[in-house]
């Protein structure tokens, strides 16, 4: 069957490309979370190649042996209802494979959702990462500094990213350090990453969020602890503070270059609650109150994608919607 020629060639090239090909970011991990995921992926590829092999061998065999040809002219194929033993085999074996992969999945999912085993005893470095339009804000509450569109982290240190968004859903992804997670406007999500090799890694938003999406990249720079402390010190000496006014302007902008500040926006613009708060599991009056104010707070400084502000639309539906929408869709 010549149609499978290219298929096999492609598969062979995949297998050849897999080990150590540095351009495949996901399989070239530089941190424990990414390594766990890379191992999981390679394991699953191996298992799945086994499944493919069984299907392909059987497939080629039946096609070659039972194709219509001169020599089997007049052959009348038998009537076969099925065979319960054979069918039991191809139910049982897949169940075993799926069970095995389920165990792997649950274990590795729990692993990467928590601080990596090697750094369990450390207090993680907390970095709030928030997105607005097509840029990323990184706030370091412990150090009291904030950066835009780049993040520096020390190696061999558990880092806890707390993610949220000033608008659309984005997804923070640094492939060589670990998997991605959504940043949303109404709840805080947590992403545990660490780097164990010094280096510069590409980070980006992985979730489509409008026309600037393709350029929503940032650099994640993993540095030695000494370099990191040096950098923090440097920032405090050279950068300026971030005022509420300036932050509002920053949110409005579509794209900006790198920026560095000596305080975080968290003080005047607190992040939303985490999942539990959002779901209102406690249900006390205080909690809901808090939730609401947080919403409103965010709302105040939510950016608009376009220069014209559309906030009035979120509150009261105007009876004269026709004119209203005309002005909106006009620009």
């Amino acid at each position, binding site marked *: 069957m010549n149609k499978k020629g290219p298929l096999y060639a492609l598969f062979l090239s995949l297998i050849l490309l897999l080990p150590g090909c540095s351009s495949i970011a996901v399989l070239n991990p530089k941190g424990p979370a990414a390594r*766990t995921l890379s191992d999981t992926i390679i394991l699953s590829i191996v298992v799945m190649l086994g499944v493919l092999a069984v299907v392909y061998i059987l497939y080629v065999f039946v096609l070659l042996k039972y194709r219509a040809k001169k020599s089997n002219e007049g052959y009348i194929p038998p009537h076969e209802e099925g065979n319960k033993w054979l069918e039991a085999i191809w139910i049982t074996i897949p169940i075993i494979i799926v069970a095995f992969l389920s165990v792997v999945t649950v274990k590795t999912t729990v692993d990467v959702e928590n601080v990596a085993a090697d750094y369990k005893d450390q207090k993680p470095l907390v970095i709030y990462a928030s997105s607005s339009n097509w840029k990323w804000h990184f706030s370091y509450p412990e150090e009291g500094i904030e950066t835009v569109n780049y993040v520096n982290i020390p190696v061999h240190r558990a880092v806890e990213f707390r993610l949220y968004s000033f608008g659309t859903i984005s997804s923070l992804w640094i492939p060589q350090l670990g998997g991605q997670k959504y940043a949303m406007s109404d709840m805080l999500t947590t992403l545990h990453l660490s780097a164990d090799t010094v280096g510069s890694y590409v980070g980006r938003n992985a979730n489509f969020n409008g026309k600037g999406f393709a350029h929503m990249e940032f650099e994640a720079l993993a540095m030695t602890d000494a370099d990191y402390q040096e950098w923090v010190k440097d920032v405090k000496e050279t950068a300026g503070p971030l005022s509420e006014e300036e932050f509002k302007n920053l949110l409005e902008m579509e794209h900006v270059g790198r920026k560095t500040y000596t305080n975080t926006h968290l003080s005047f613009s607190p992040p939303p609650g985490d999942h539990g708060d959002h779901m209102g599991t406690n249900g006390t009056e205080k909690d809901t109150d808090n939730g609401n104010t947080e919403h409103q707070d965010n709302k105040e400084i939510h950016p608009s994608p376009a220069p014209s502000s559309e906030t009035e639309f*979120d509150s009261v539906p105007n009876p004269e919607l026709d004119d209203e929408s005309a002005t909106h869709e006009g620009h």
Partner: protein
Amino acid sequence: MDWDKFKVHGEPLIYGAMASIVLATIGIIVGLTYFKKWGYLWREWLTTVDHKRIGIMYILAALLMLFRGGVDAIMMKLQTAAPDMKFLDAQHYNEVFTTHGLIMILFMAMPFIIGLMNVIVPLQIGARDVAFPRLNAVSFWLFFFGAMLLNISFVIGGSPDAGWSAYFPLASLEFSPTVGNNYYSLALQISGIGTLITGVNFIVTILKMRAPGMKLMKMPMFTWSVLITNVIIVFAFPVLTVALALMMFDRLFGSQFFTMANGGMDMLWANLFWVWGHPEVYIVVLPAFGIYSEIIATFSKKNLYGYTSMVFSMLIISLLSFLVWAHHFYTMGQGAMVNSFFSITTMAIAVPTGVKIFNWLFTLRKGRISFTTPMLYSLAFIPIFTIGGVTGVMLAMASADYQYHNTMFLVAHFHYVLIPGAVFAVIAGFHYWFPKVFGFRLNERLGKHAFWWIVISFNVSFFPLFLLGLMGMTRRQYTYSAETGFGPLSMVSFVGAIGLVVGFVILVYNIYWSTRYEPRDTDGDPWDARTLEWATKSPIPAYNFAVVPNVKTRDAYWSAKQDKVPLFEDKITKIHMPSNTGKPFILGVIFFIAGFSLVFSLWIPAILSGVGILIVMAAMSFDRDHGFYIPAEEVIATEKKLRGETV
């Protein structure tokens, strides 16, 4: 009145599209007038309630949409073929990939499948039509005008641009202020209602109108797959209806279900969307499994292996399809426990799917396999779809998905599932059943040329995307820099896409060539096939079967041919048929006007057409036309003519 909002600015491509739409419309109108075909069009097609003609119209519309969606695909592939391409800007690219997804799933794959089920299912169960022929026409016209509404968005006002999944708050008025997503909520709503009606119609048809003796477990596998699919439609589509209605309220009337302010929940949309969206995948894939089952059995000259387990595996898939939606957003931070649950349910789908693959392989075993065009597509399906399946298992693993989510790996996976799992199937079914409907085969030589182009180019185009995903390329990014290293593989993918175009051009040329030159077949059974639809003549008479068949075995027509089991034992009597009606078409037109008015917040025409819809529905409800009878003599005469005897 502000005319400005109707305009789309600045793109030569859009002006080109406008010009071609206008020219095509003028061409059709002039042509119909010149050849005096208006009356014919109205009497024979626009007002028809015949399931075969409705099916043909579905398939024609689907082919048109395949063209539109294909043009979208080529534009995307060209834009990403090399780093920093300047063919489309970001906004235009976003509109193109959004409509590509919507059109290919909702206005190409699904209507193509519904078209095939319309033509074939009543024949396979020995019925004269579907249970509710007029509702069937309503279904078609709602689908058709929904599709048209989405298609005009490109030139009037702008297309939806937030992805086919339209995640909020991106799709809200705040972040998508153009009318594009208004089109989304209304066009999908209108065609969705049509699909929901189809679901009800076919469940009733299959449960109530089977020929005497055709027990459920004697139904052809395609009919089984259609039954299960329509059960899924009836459960899944109401969720879409509700979600789209809420979306429309958010965008048109200032409600806050999914927006950021006032307690709106963006992920609620994502949940509702995928509670419909995942079963939707099985709505297009299960009938494909049915089509392959028929074709593989026919061209292996064997009955389908493991019939019972095939049925049960589809039932299990349909159940599981409602338990896996959250795997579309493992990364929203719902924690390891929730993700583990959805991982396991998702991987579990591999088991019944594997059962089907092995059953097909064992149907081939000990057969006598002939490589016709429909069989080639069916055979190509097995190895390619298996790649889609195993990568699906890989994606189902929540932890690993943190690295695949939203990347080209995912894009490669679902194309590896949907193209062999739906597109190859409808093409195979199209070639297979074409002679049944039109009385001649599509040319085999041209068919095979198209096949090789399509199947090889498909792999060239989509396999590199697996690697691009692992390299960190996300989906939906309209450009990338040279340093990313995405360039070479993206170029390979573009070359593959060109090959796909060549394949589809040959396929369409084949329809033209065969219509002109292919020898006519009078027998009605050109493939020596097994199921009831081949027992009637080609082209199929309006009443399908002169005498309702008596079914005793699973492959009823095969037993009739092989073992001389009598199929048609009764005498020909007068046949009751439904009358044509123009109301479904009119209803569709009014729905279109209502949808268009709502998109642009034109309240007066919207309200008037809303009233119009109610009036037409009332008129249909109180319609006292009970159809007509074809006299026995006329049936006998038609049958003789079909056999080539002189009357």
